[in-house]
């Protein structure tokens, strides 16, 4: 148990380290000199040199990398190239906005998947099943960014029900969350439906029926507890998708989260801010993966208790 946990922890650290390292070097090898980018064209060389010294980009690459790692371990993510905002502050301010958005979306998408998936599975090929599958096919083919634009077009600009951009209150959540839920749910619905159909055909369901377990219990307790397991695994596998969705949605709705922070920083070649954003996103990603696995363990006694 302890060994497995340490291996897992090591793997998580490895993933985060690999992400920040790749990003660190790619930034410095493929982009132009940020000092030159930050000053207007025709700025005297000595000013650019001074900017370079201020940013620390005058040092050899490996020395920069070493400093970066040491600072990072100490919790210092550096200072933004633009202005003097500490990156850590900016990132800490942005993270909750993203987590709230993604968290609400995942919970709603999972609930929707359980509801529609199980209802569809009650009567495969029935009317409801076909309707659900049609929704799944359409939603799966809909790009999140387009859906977001259409929702804004209709609900914000035409009907004026919800704000089109910015996080100004609870109403601001509606459109971004709807976008994420609709694009995240089709895979989840499909999985729940399929695993429900398979579960309801299992021997233990027939045996339970033979010992007079009532149909609603059969469905809601015996079926659901087994059929919901793949959903948890799938949510773990969809975290990358969710991350991408969050970036898109934040860009469209001008949402002050990590995704928008990274995109803005990329546009302005703000190295420390890009690195900070990527680091936090990577850490959140591996932690969420870990949490999903723990939830699976709680739900499935075969994992929780271990065999005899």
């Amino acid at each position, binding site marked *: 148990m302890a060994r497995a946990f340490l291996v897992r922890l090591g793997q998580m650290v490895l*993933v985060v380290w690999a992400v920040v390292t790749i990003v660190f070097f790619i930034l410095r090898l493929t982009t132009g000199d940020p000092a030159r980018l930050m000053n207007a064209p025709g700025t005297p060389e000595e000013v650019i040199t001074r900017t370079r010294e201020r940013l620390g980009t005058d040092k050899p690459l490996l020395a920069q990398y070493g400093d970066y790692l040491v600072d990072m371990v100490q919790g210092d993510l550096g200072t933004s190239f633009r202005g003097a905002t500490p990156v850590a502050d900016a990132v800490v301010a942005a993270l909750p906005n993203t987590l709230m958005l993604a968290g609400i979306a995942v919970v709603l998408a999972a609930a929707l998947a359980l509801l529609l998936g199980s209802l569809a599975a009650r009567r495969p090929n029935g009317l409801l099943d076909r309707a659900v599958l049609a929704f799944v096919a359409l939603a799966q083919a809909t*790009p999140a960014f387009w859906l977001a634009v259409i929702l804004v077009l209709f609900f914000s600009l035409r009907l004026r029900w919800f704000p089109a951009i910015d996080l100004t209150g609870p109403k601001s959540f509606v459109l971004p969350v709807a976008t994420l839920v609709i694009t995240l749910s089709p895979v989840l619905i499909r999985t729940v439906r399929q695993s429900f159909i398979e579960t309801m055909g299992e021997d*233990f369901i027939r045996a339970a029926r*033979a*010992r007079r377990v009532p149909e609603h219990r059969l469905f809601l307790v015996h079926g659901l507890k087994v059929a919901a397991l793949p959903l948890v695994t799938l949510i773990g596998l969809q975290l990358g998708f969710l991350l991408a969705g969050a970036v898109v949605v934040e860009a469209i709705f001008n949402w002050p989260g990590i995704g928008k922070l990274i995109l803005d920083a*990329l546009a302005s070649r703000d190295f420390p801010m890009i690195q900070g954003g990527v680091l936090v996103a990577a850490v959140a990603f591996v932690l969420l993966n870990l949490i999903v696995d723990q939830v699976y363990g709680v739900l499935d006694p075969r994992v929780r208790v271990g065999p005899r």
Partner: protein
Amino acid sequence: MTDAISVVEEAAPRQEAAGVRAMRGLARRPTAVLGAIGVAVILVAAVFAPIIASFEPSSQDLAQSLRPPVWDGGDVDHLLGTDALGRDVASRLLFGARNSLMISLGAMLLGSLLGLATGLAAGFFGGRVDSLLMRLGDIQLAFPFILLAIAILGTLADRNVGHMILVLGIPGWIVYARVVRSRVLSEKEKEYVLAARSVGASGMRRLRRYVLPSVWQVVPVIALLDVGFLIITESTLSFLGLGLPPPAASWGLMLAEGRKNMLISPWLSILPGLAILVTVLSINLVGDGLADVLDPRLRKGTFRRRLLRGPVPQPVGAERALLSVRDLSVEFPMGRRVIKAVRHVDFDVRRGETLGVVGESGSGKSVTALSIIQLLDAPGRVTSGQIIFDGRDLARIPDREIREMRGSRIGMIFQNPAASLNPVLSIGHQMAEAMTRLDSLEDGDVGAASRRALRSVGIGDPERILRQYPFQLSGGMNQRVMIAIAMAAKPDLLIADEPTTALDVTTQAQILDELREITTRQDTSLILITHDIALVAERADTILVMYAGQVAECGPASRVVSEPGHPYTRALLDSVPRADIESGVKLQAISGELPDPATVPPGCPFAPRCPEVMEICQRVNPPSFTVAADHWAACHLWAPQEAEVSA
């Protein structure tokens, strides 16, 4: 040697026809056909975009800026209108299809080739190569790839199609690799591949001949769904300004630019999205159809009881019988074929009696049992006959009544005890569920009732068992739990379908003796189904022998065992190892196979395997003839002389 290989190759499933079969299967699905048409149209549009398009995708004409589409007041020159720079939207959509398909197909090819190579390597070499590759895959799945893609593409100054293909394609390998690997592993173990190996077919030959065909069954489906996903991802990146740089025509980019004029020309935002939606939807429809055709597993229906309708025959059954089955037939319609699993079966079970039902797998004994308790798997249904239980015809009573009877008046236990209990619910939970519904639960103490039930089947420490899950118990223990649950309801009839087949020999005898003990104590009738006539020889009062869905012989256990009337019963008895026969006598295996239940030939179904076959057996299916009092055999050997003539 070559002969041996060709013989083995004959045994391999025929793969040549698979492609044709898949096409035919697809053609029968309207949604897949629709998808295929969509894909074809888009492919043509993408390939011939330079010819079809009436404008250069990036030729600007500021005088024509922001023209609406033709249905919204625009002119025919620009069917779908123009964008802010006066570029023709229709032409840009066509060229966007070209770029989008080029990138996503390229990325799919790259990912699938990488995955195919690594999956084959992992599956074939196994060992260290396998664990290294799979560990790499684990890490990759836990890797926030999209983050990296955004960072990489965001810093590249001049992105081209190659960059996009690399960034989008490489991470896809793991999906293909996993599937290919598992296919290789399962194919490697199949008999015909092992046989090919034993006759010296080389590794490459085995790979090409046996493993790749099976891999081709799954890869196209994944590849199609992958392309759909890649198109969306590519356009998403373009939308974020991380795709092909302007002025390239790309759906995502068009939408991002159109969004700036959302209020004046909403169509600029709507059309590119529609193009993506239609493309991905078409691809997915074909992919889903293909998955359906190639993987028929999901077509299995769920349980749905079908009431037997039509005229009710005259009530039958001896007064003394608890259960009277008359002329029972069960069919499973499978596409164009109809499997006649049970044909015109008659038998009685008296109160307190143990009926042993014997037959090999496929003889219809389990189907008979399931039709009594009305739990036949779809699409099976009772097509004729009566199942009179205590005066009620179970094939005709409403669902509500049969549900009330299951688990209270009729209990059933199954072959695989571990699979008969829900794996994620504790034993205590599942017992309580049954105990709360007991009529006999006077004190309302469910826990006490559960413990009492477990003790009645010889479980010494019920407290511990109640806390555990089915996977923590042995097969014998799980079966005891099943018996305890079934018997706690004090049923009139217990059906035990091969209750000990999955258990080891010692446990087998113990469980059977306990079963007999508790049914005798509670005066419960027992139908004990088995393929092993020796198990029921001493434990049953009556033995019913089934063959090919029919009753071959029925009579008192002692008589059936000592003086079998049917050659099949004799063959069954001869195949049993017995202690009382000296060990020089060779055991007789029954030669031949059961007839195909879909195409039942006329005559006696056992005739092809019967050592005493006569001319009449090929023509006439024998009815039950009396062998002695209460003893019948469906065999022409027992036909009265005159009956043989008239037949």
